[in-house]
């Protein structure tokens, strides 16, 4: 198998071009995490105390990495929409008939999805620090980007897996949403998983986003539930698996 860097580059460039031309979509997709952060963060900050949040950590500080995880999750998954879009408007034929191996196509798509998700994740992080979330420092910020990339790769690839199997736009949105909400709520983004009943707690342990959020929290506010090593390990394994799966499924796509 020969990776075609030309193909990866131009597929990525196309995603970027389209992203920057659809400004309203960017604003719309940023609004949800923004409201979550503002209303939940500021609201619960004064009202609620979750057990499991260490002393001296404000709720909004605890929440912010979770919201970044959420932004990445939703944005990454929905980047699979570009495949559905391409299928509906016929451009997928142009891509599928190209003399490049399917891994390059998937890589280009993933790179595009990761870049847009990353930009939004960082934007939410900047907004968070703007409204007073305390971040440990610049190295924390830089290392958090590593986790953002890992989370984005995982779920962009998973979005492509869905997109390779679902042909219509509404079906895709329905299924990704159905999938994304439990993944998000059971990731420890809102509250420490220890507050959950045991059987639900186990679900959080098999949820890759849990480890992503945990890693982000370590980088940004310095607390961790598992260990950073485990977080990285789980995310690397999961994202590799998703890349392999999405490439395999992509190579089997038939376009009518």
């Amino acid at each position, binding site marked *: 198998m020969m990776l*075609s860097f*030309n*193909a990866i*580059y*131009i*597929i990525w460039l*196309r995603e970027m*071009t*389209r992203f920057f*031309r659809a400004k309203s979509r960017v604003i719309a997709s940023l609004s949800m995490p923004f409201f979550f952060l503002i209303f939940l963060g500021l609201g619960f900050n004064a009202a609620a105390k979750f057990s499991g949040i260490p002393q001296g950590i404000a709720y909004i500080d605890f929440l912010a990495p979770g919201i970044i995880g959420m932004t990445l999750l939703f944005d990454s998954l929905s980047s699979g929409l570009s495949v559905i879009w*391409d299928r509906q*408007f*016929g*451009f*997928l*034929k*142009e*891509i*599928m*008939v*190209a*003399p*490049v*191996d399917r891994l390059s196509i998937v890589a280009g798509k993933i790179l595009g999805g990761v870049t847009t998700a990353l930009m939004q994740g960082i934007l939410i992080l900047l907004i968070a620090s703007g409204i007073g979330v305390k971040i440990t420092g610049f190295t924390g910020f830089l290392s958090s980007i590593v986790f953002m990339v890992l989370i984005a790769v995982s779920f962009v690839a998973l979005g492509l897996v869905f997109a390779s199997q679902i042909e219509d736009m509404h079906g895709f949105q329905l299924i990704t949403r159905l999938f994304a909400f439990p993944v998000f709520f059971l990731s420890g983004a809102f509250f420490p998983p220890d507050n959950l009943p045991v059987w639900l707690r186990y679900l959080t342990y098999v949820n890759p986003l849990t480890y992503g959020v945990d890693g982000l929290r370590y980088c940004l506010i310095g607390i961790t539930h598992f260990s950073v090593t485990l977080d990285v390990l789980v995310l690397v394994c999961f994202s590799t698996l998703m890349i392999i799966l999405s490439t395999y499924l992509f190579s089997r796509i*038939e*376009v*009518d």
Partner: protein
Amino acid sequence: MFAIKTDKITKTYGDLVAVNNVDIEINKGEIFGLLGPNGAGKTTMIKMLATLLKPTSGFAQVWSHNILNEPDAVRRSIGIVFQNPSIDIELTGRENLNFHAIVYNLSKDLRKKRIDEVLDLVELHDKADVFVKNYSGGMQRRLEIARGLMHFPNVLFLDEPTLGLDAQTRRSVWGYIKKLNEEENITVVLTTHYMDEADHLCGRVAIIDHGEIIALDSPASLKKSIGKDTISLQVMEKDIFLNALTVSDLMKDMELHDVSSDKFLDGSLDGSLDGYLHLSVENGEKMIPRIMDLAHKEGVFVQSVDLHKPTLEDVFLHFTGRSIREQEAGKKEYMQRMMGARMRGTR
């Protein structure tokens, strides 16, 4: 060597057989046409050859590469212009061409030169930097054709290349297809339901109906195979002329056909009342002067002459019993078959 060779290639959708056990050999350098009505299986055939659909059974070799296990090698050898839109309408025309050029590994200099070339060809230069969503249907089509030509493929597939184009653009597309075929030695495989297109462009034509090849030859041979030319004459003194004709040596090269009885006449030349004579001949254009000579010699006044040569339309009618122009009927039949297949599938 063949450019394309299929071996019992078949594609079924449930109970519907779209392509049925087709064996075709397409020579390098020829313009080969798949001619048939909508739903005949032309597009399915091309998509299998272009590695976009996997055959249910059988296989094919494209430029000596197996479509089943060497898809990338096949893709490198071919270019394709799809019947349905396959351009990104959110990008400009130039961006679409640039995408294609980079995916197909054209060098930077060649890329620029080639984009200008193909834009000139389809006369879209002044629209190159406009978003494709603001193009008219015909402009989008022209852009697709330009894109298919970008990378000098060995085999170029054209699925209904001139569908929806105005007569003038059609002509220029035909011209460029011929030019590409001759100058770059590109093998062209096109599907069409336009008789004149197949006739004008193709060295050989396969007539396809219900997923099967029912005839395959050059347009001229196909037309010859179903009958000779017909010369229709209207003469004043028909009996005199008929008598003269039957004793002349022209009879070696023709048959007389009488409109009133609709049968070929051998000897008994009881001509029709309206003064028309129908002569079945080969090379009608060469026979007409000889007939006129005879008429002149006999002092018979010929009022009108009409020459009808068999068309591919006649060929299709001959082999299928229906006209290819019965588009609506054909579509309806196709839909019914699809529906039938679906209903059976859910049972």
